[in-house]
């Protein structure tokens, strides 16, 4: 049985309305993906909001220049609000899962 980690970090700022939406979107997409999959693999999932004001050095080191930005497994993947499809594809790509269209 393999074990993967999925860490989704939503870089956000105070009064950033889109940031809250990005967090909700990430949770929704992960739920819709039905993770962990029924392949017997164990996946640890972590979705968190990172305040760029409180963790400025980390945000800048990752390449964050605006919010919301989304990093998956410490790699900056989105520099603005993604679509649900784009986020799903990015997560699937990270976990090497086949593309699953929402039914």
């Amino acid at each position, binding site marked *: 049985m393999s074990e993967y980690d999925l860490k989704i970090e939503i870089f956000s*700022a105070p009064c950033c309305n889109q940031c809250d939406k990005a967090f909700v979107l990430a949770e929704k997409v992960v739920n819709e993906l039905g993770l962990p999959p029924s392949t017997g693999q164990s996946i640890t999932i972590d979705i968190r909001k990172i305040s760029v004001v409180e963790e400025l050095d980390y945000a*800048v080191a990752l390449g964050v220049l*605006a919010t919301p930005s989304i990093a998956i497994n410490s790699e900056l993947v989105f520099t603005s609000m993604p679509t649900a499809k784009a986020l799903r594809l990015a997560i699937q790509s990270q976990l090497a899962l086949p593309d699953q269209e929402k039914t």
Partner: protein
Amino acid sequence: MSVYRIGDISKMLELTADTLRYYEKLGLLKKVNRTASGIRLYNHKDISRLKFIKRAQKMDFTLAEIKDLLQMREDPQHARIEVRELSHRKLAEIETRLKDLTTLRNELTLLVNLCLGSDGGCPIIEGIDENS
């Protein structure tokens, strides 16, 4: 080819006439061409050299170091070993400073973008207040 008087160069490069004369005295500038009546006439090579001096001074290079670097600039193939080594060291210093400036630029870009996106108040100031 255009030539310029000391007053023109002083305005162009924001260096005082005294500074220009001083650089020439120190040997940072090659002997500047003069008219029959002794008026200095600066050409494009002098201007290029002066711009280099200004840039190097902004990096806090000493005038002695700048003089050596100017030798390298003039004839890199025949520069003394010490001058080559100085050039390498100074290049490393510049790379470090560029890296720091890039990080600072990215920090400020991020903070400026945050303020633009905020309807009420400035998250930068609020964030600083909360942390302090």
